[in-house]
């Protein structure tokens, strides 16, 4: 078999390098994009259950109590598995929300309760590239006395970090 000439090697490396230069960033971008389903689905689930609970309760008790970011450290650049009991907080149980598989985002639930109007904000934070800069997704809702509960729109901040 004839060895490759230098010109052929240069051409081969150029072509291969060009392909890799396009394919690798695109692959990484798609990989991260596919992980954005996790916070959106999680927030939709939390907000849906919270709204359901609010519809059957008095306004001052509409939403469960606040719960801090779970897990407490936002996963940085890798998927993490939570230790047993991470999602045992009464609020997560009332919202019927837990993550049993490895995941890339942490979730929190903040509620503000009063006699006339109660509100909640569900938040998901992640650090897909592990650079310490967090992306944040929030979805909120509210209920006023005498009205049906309402759900807000999804808000996204720095989703690509």
């Amino acid at each position, binding site marked *: 078999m004839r060895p490759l*000439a*230098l010109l052929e090697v240069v051409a081969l490396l150029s072509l291969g390098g060009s392909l890799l230069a396009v394919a690798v960033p695109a692959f990484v971008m798609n990989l991260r994009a596919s992980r954005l389903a996790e916070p959106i689905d999680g927030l939709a689930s939390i907000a849906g259950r919270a709204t359901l609970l609010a519809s059957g309760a008095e306004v001052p008790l509409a939403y469960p109590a606040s719960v801090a970011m779970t897990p407490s450290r936002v996963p940085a650049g890798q998927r993490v598995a939570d230790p047993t009991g991470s999602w045992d907080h009464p609020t997560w149980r009332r919202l*019927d929300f837990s993550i049993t598989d490895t995941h890339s985002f942490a979730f929190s639930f903040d509620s503000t309760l009063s006699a006339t109007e109660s509100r909640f904000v569900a938040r998901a934070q992640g650090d897909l590239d592990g650079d310490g800069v967090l992306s944040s997704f929030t979805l909120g809702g509210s209920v006023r006395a005498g009205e049906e509960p309402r759900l807000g729109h999804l808000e996204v901040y720095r989703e690509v970090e």
Partner: protein
Amino acid sequence: MSRGTLGALLVAGLGLGCVHGVRAGLARDFSHVRQRYDIHSLPSPERAVVFSMGYRSALADLLFAGTLVESGLHLQAHRPFETVVERLDVVLKLDPKLATVYRFADTLVTFQARGVGRKEYFAARRLLEQGMRELPYDGELYLSAGQFMAYVAPPNLLKTESPEVVAEWRSAGARAMVRACELSGGQQNIAFQCVTAASLLRKSGEVEALERFVERVLAVTDDPEIQRQALTSLERATSEHRRELMSQRRDRSAARKKADIAFVKRDLYLLLPPPSDVWRCLAPGASDAACAQSGRSLQQATEGRSGQSL
């Protein structure tokens, strides 16, 4: 150095020079390029089935994974995902039993970086209803669909739809949640949330459905808090006489369970036939209740004797 080597190095040097010369300008232009519209590049659902050459589930998985990626890319670009419904239609034509698609359907269609319109809400409902037809025993799907139709979508539809249309959405959502309750059995968490569906039935005046629903919730749960909430919703909608008859029936069932096998959970006990004593049944003049083979025949025998019926 040979002439060939020199030529190769010259070509490489020229290539590097060209790249260096045009790269900055191209990168600047590329950074300004933004995709604004989606083009639906998939074939129609029917053609996609043929195109799969029999590997329908595999192609459905592949397309759904691509849809999730596309959804994320659209979110990053703050663009509406205009072709998501068409893509999901193709996936579901290929594999109508792919439960994950139905679970994600309302989220993918209605939770986008920008707000969505009535078309998306109706499309999400269509997909969820298709899911409930295809997977009639998936309690989680029914609960999720019920939440969406009863609570998530209606406030957003009030701007464009008449109150009657919105009320129909809530009613359909309540029915889905009732079905979720029936399918959930004794799962306390789902049962607790399902009790709130009773308020929807009460508000829409579906008293009979409310009675049936509350009676089933009471029959399968041992949680006193859920029972209290279910009874509260019933008190607001039905007469005292009806509640008394239902209470009697519930008490009879509880007493029978206590005397028979008290340690079994309520929902499991309802699956068992009534206790029977073969010798007493064989005795001359034995009552129908002693020989009952099912809960229904026992109820008929008992109610026939006491002259009550519901």
